[in-house]
């Protein structure tokens, strides 16, 4: 039976991994992710989760171990953040290239230097092109639901790709709030047991995984990979609906979530927990008679191109918030992506919340008033100190 508990985002993710009956976990602690692997270690220690927990010596090895385990045909999970994700970089490409449905929690945290343990999304954005599906959750409930959904999406025969569920460091990882925890049996029945048809290290069916991709085959494997992540949009949408039917919660259409878009001349586009604060401001403005909308990007990769065009067709002022910066381009990644799909529309980019700089309702209001008076293509850094 579903029960509600008041838990952190990291606990919600650990709980989801447990509900999903992961068989091998390989992880290394890093702030602000550590509570997730600590919770998983405790489940294993208490006999609540019958998983093999490999306490690896680095994130690089965490991903390598997950790859080895997934390639042997079991469900795997890991968690990381920031420098840890950066250390995994090489292995992320290998996980997707080998088409292994590994699920990972990334707790978004700034990259050094200077060293900073607080939230921004530069870490996962830096892995944009790695072939991982990237989901950004807004709250702890969505964190739990997204991890469960991630296994369903990743293991779909049409997809077979790793999925990274991103949650904002500290803002979600260290905040307790009510989270509905689905019935374990029900989740396990929904996901079933992972039994790969393509990748299995089994002496009874000896195959060679990770061979030399000679020029005669490499480009085709990359095209297949691209087709798989492109095609995953439909699967993500379907899983969102399935999940809604079973567990009574859905997140937009799975790829994007619109909020108060009807008759909104000004629309903000953002990812992650800041969307809550934006909704809060939208509600306040609405009471004052002002209509502003939000388009929340839930899956950054695959990027919901068509939804962005469709859902922003009536907006005249588009303000894209980025908790990352493409150095040398003076725009954030989401700003660049949104600009590239919206033709003949005013799109301004706002760099916010880097390295844990708090994003307040006042900041959101400032963005709204700025974009309404701005020219197309402006980039503004919000809440910079003098």
């Amino acid at each position, binding site marked *: 039976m579903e029960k509600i508990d008041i838990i952190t985002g990291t606990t919600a993710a650990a709980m989801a991994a447990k509900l999903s009956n992961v068989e091998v976990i390989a992880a290394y602690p890093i702030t602000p992710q550590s509570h997730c692997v600590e919770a998983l270690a405790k489940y294993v220690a208490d006999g609540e989760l019958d998983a093999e927990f490999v306490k690896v010596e680095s994130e690089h090895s965490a991903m390598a171990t997950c790859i080895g385990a997934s390639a042997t045909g079991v469900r795997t999970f890991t968690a990381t953040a920031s420098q840890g994700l950066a250390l995994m970089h090489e292995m992320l490409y290998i996980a997707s290239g080998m088409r292994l449905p590994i699920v990972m929690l990334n707790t978004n945290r700034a990259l050094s230097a200077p060293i900073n343990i607080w939230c921004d999304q530069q870490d996962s954005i830096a892995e944009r092109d790695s072939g991982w599906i990237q989901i950004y959750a807004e709250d702890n409930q969505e964190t739990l639901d997204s991890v469960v959904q991630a296994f369903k999406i990743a293991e779909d025969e049409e997809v077979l790709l790793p999925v990274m569920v991103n949650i904002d460091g500290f803002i979600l990882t260290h905040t307790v709030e009510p989270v509905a925890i689905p019935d374990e049996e029900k989740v396990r029945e929904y996901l079933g047991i992972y039994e790969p048809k393509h*990748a299995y290290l089994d002496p009874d069916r*000896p195959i*060679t*995984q990770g*061979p030399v991709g000679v020029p005669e085959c490499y480009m*085709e494997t990359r095209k*297949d990979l691209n087709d798989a992540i492109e095609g995953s949009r439909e699967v993500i949408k379907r899983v969102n609906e399935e999940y809604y039917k079973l567990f009574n919660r859905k997140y937009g259409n799975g790829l994007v979530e619109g909020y108060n878009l009807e008759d909104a001349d000004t629309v903000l586009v953002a990812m992650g927990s800041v969307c809550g604060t934006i909704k809060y401001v939208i509600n306040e403005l609405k009471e004052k008679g002002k209509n502003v909308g939000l388009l929340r990007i839930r899956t950054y990769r695959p990027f919901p191109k068509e939804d962005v065009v469709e859902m922003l067709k009536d907006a005249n002022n588009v303000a894209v918030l980025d908790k990352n910066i493409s150095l040398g381009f003076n725009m954030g990644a989401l700003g660049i992506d949104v600009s590239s799909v919206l033709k003949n529309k005013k799109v301004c980019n706002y760099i916010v919340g880097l390295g844990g700089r708090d994003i307040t309702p006042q900041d959101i209001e400032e963005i709204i008033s700025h974009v309404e008076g701005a020219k197309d293509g402006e980039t503004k850094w919000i809440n910079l100190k003098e």
Partner: protein
Amino acid sequence: MVTIAAIIYEPGSTNKNKTGSWRTFRPILDNKKCIKCENCYIFCPEGTIYEDKNGDFKINYDYCKGCLICVNECPVNALTSTREEK
């Protein structure tokens, strides 16, 4: 068509590649002299020396690259080499 993740589902499929064409020198095994010590068998980097039904060792020239380790390691000179005639 390339398989998913370029996984190779056919174990040992390099045997399509006849590396015998690499040879400059050809080892020749004289079964009359052979004492079946198995040196040539175990030291061959290609696994190209095999035991036939009669228990005699033979060289599969489809794959022998002509390194001549077998000639060097034969304790009774049952293996000799000759230049490959092409």
